């Protein structure tokens, strides 16, 4: 067995009040995996989830008992939540893992058909510093997969440690970039349908650690993360009309973006470099797309048509913008250069298309489609080809991409006087539709980048 050689940098301990932990270079840590035969090819469509064993991580001191349990369960929940993995219950185990460095008895794990084995240990220091180390084993190859890693952080940040562990396992086995250590900003809703109260909220991708960023005194809509995850754009009625605001996530400090008297602005998104914002502005009843450089200057108009132009989203290289327009008579999707200019229609199927969002990988565009009385979340290639619908319901709307471009979260609203929205996620294959537990009604999710 390979010695436990490599230690990842320790996460900064001060997490409690801040959302971002500087310190752990995720890419470095995740690039260490060697490619064993154990592999899930996501693109091929997984029918049978890969069985893994994850014995509760060893508590290396008395203080770590509960923490080891929690971290283990969260790592397992991340993996099984993808639909790609299935956890084997501990009652089936033949071997017990009592120490992190115990030799692995591969035949015992093969006998219960565990293809992957994750062994870990947790230590909680007197000062509240949590240390997690783990190893991933390819049971049938009889070898470790990648090298052991150690992560550290404060007690209050333990979920991030668990997500980082799960991210590493996911990446090593799938070859995909990770996404568990990420957040979602959304709109938390309460109250009846004709008097809904809306608050901006932020949570871990799995619905944990919900924190509210605004009170319910004004309608807020459609928050969007900056590429670094430190800022959020959203639309608020706090001035009486819809206007775009930019908020620092760590402090909840905000400022209005385009402050023209009486002018409605909405549907903002950051450029990939975080330096400018593309958005809709309505004047004289006409809605067009504008771009504003955040370092100063006047808004620049990108479209100029009597039709509605809204819901713009940059390509990841920043070169193009996909948006929604009803210039053909009904809302369809169009692409134009990020500087404006020639517009090309990309949606040609039946029905109405809206809320296009470019995938972080650049290859696909997710959208909302309305057809024959139903709403769908779908994806198409950036040129409009290979359209696929992933969901169908009374009202599915507003897709957002996981940082690795493999999963989409969206809002699903139920019909009727008691109807309410919830957040769901689905693979881009259309499988693994899941409701995200937000504790109450929720809409307009936007996924953060992978946290640092």
């Amino acid at each position, binding site marked *: 067995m390979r010695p436990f050689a490599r230690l990842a940098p320790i996460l900064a301990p001060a997490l409690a009040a801040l959302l971002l932990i500087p310190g752990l270079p995720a890419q470095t840590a995740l690039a260490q995996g060697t490619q064993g035969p154990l592999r899930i090819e996501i693109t091929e469509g997984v029918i049978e989830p890969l069985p893994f064993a994850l014995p509760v991580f060893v508590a290396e001191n008395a203080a770590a008992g509960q923490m080891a349990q929690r971290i283990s369960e969260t790592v397992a929940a991340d993996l099984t939540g993808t639909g790609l993995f299935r956890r084997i219950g501990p009652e089936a185990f033949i071997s017990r893992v009592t120490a992190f460095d115990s030799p692995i008895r591969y035949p015992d794990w093969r006998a219960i058909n565990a293809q992957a084995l994750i062994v870990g240990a947790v230590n909680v220091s007197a000062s509240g510093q949590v240390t997690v180390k783990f190893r991933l084993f390819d049971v049938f190859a009889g070898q470790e997969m990648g090298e052991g890693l150690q992560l550290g952080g404060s007690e209050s940040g333990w979920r991030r440690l668990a997500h980082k562990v799960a991210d590493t396992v996911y990446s090593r086995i799938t070859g995909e970039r990770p996404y568990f250590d990420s957040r979602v900003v959304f709109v938390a809703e309460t109250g009846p349908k004709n*008097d*809904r109260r809306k608050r901006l909220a932020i949570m871990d991708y799995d619905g944990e650690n919900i924190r509210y960023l605004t009170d319910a005194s004004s309608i807020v809509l459609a928050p969007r993360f900056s590429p670094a995850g430190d800022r959020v754009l959203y639309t608020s009625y706090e001035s*009486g*009309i819809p206007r775009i605001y930019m908020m620092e996530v760590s402090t909840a400090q905000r400022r209005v973006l385009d402050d023209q008297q009486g002018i409605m602005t909405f549907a903002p998104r950051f450029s990939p470099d975080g330096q400018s914002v593309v958005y809709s502005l*309505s004047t004289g*009843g006409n809605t067009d797309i504008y771009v504003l450089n955040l370092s100063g200057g006047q808004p620049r108009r990108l479209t100029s048509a009597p039709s509605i132009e809204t819901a713009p989203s940059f390509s990841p290289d920043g070169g193009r913008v996909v948006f929604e327009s009803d210039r053909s008579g009904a809302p369809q999707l169009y692409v134009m250069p990020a500087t404006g200019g020639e517009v090309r229609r990309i949606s040609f199927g039946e029905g109405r298309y809206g809320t296009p969002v470019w995938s972080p990988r650049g290859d696909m565009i997710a959208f909302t489609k309305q057809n024959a009385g139903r709403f769908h979340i779908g994806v198409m290639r950036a040129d409009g080809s290979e359209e696929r619908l992933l969901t169908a319901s009374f009202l599915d709307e507003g897709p957002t991409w996981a940082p690795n471009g493999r999963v989409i979260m969206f809002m699903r609203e139920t019909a009727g006087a008691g109807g309410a929205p919830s957040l769901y996620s689905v693979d881009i294959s259309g499988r693994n539709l899941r409701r995200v537990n937000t504790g109450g009604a929720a809409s307009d999710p936007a996924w953060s980048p992978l946290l640092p």
Partner: protein
Amino acid sequence: MNEGRYSMTHLAKAALLVAALGLGACTDPARLGGGSGDGGFGGGTGALGDPSNPASIAYFNRTVGDRVLFAVDQSTLDDTARATLGEQAVWLSANPEYAVLIEGHADERGTREYNLALGARRANSVQEYLISQGVAANRLRTVSYGKERPTEICSDESCYQQNRRAVSVVTAGAPVN
């Protein structure tokens, strides 16, 4: 279409407050429970005035008619709508101390962004028509609520048609220049 079914307590209080403080038309409808488009019928006298008094806001809401309805995805005004707006213009010229906030709304069968833009179109249609009927532009402001503030909450056409609306919310105060 003047049969609003929901109570107006929030708006009534707000209107009272505006009147009492002598403020301009600059209230925040979003903060008033969004009830600003819900009518004001059945409240009787009170902040909106005596509905039998033709100079009252209650009279405007109930008798003149404070809202017009639209077909799916449309912002054009039909004959009924133009008749209502004509009456609104007459009332506004007779009551020059009031300003109007025109709210554009959409039903729930569209995306949030598109419906915001559609509501802006609807509000603008009303604004332009009122101006064409002689109402001073500086008495009129518009806002779109998209699908955020339905008055009717069922999920079929009987409710949707009531929600595809533009509501003229009369507010006390001199014109904003």
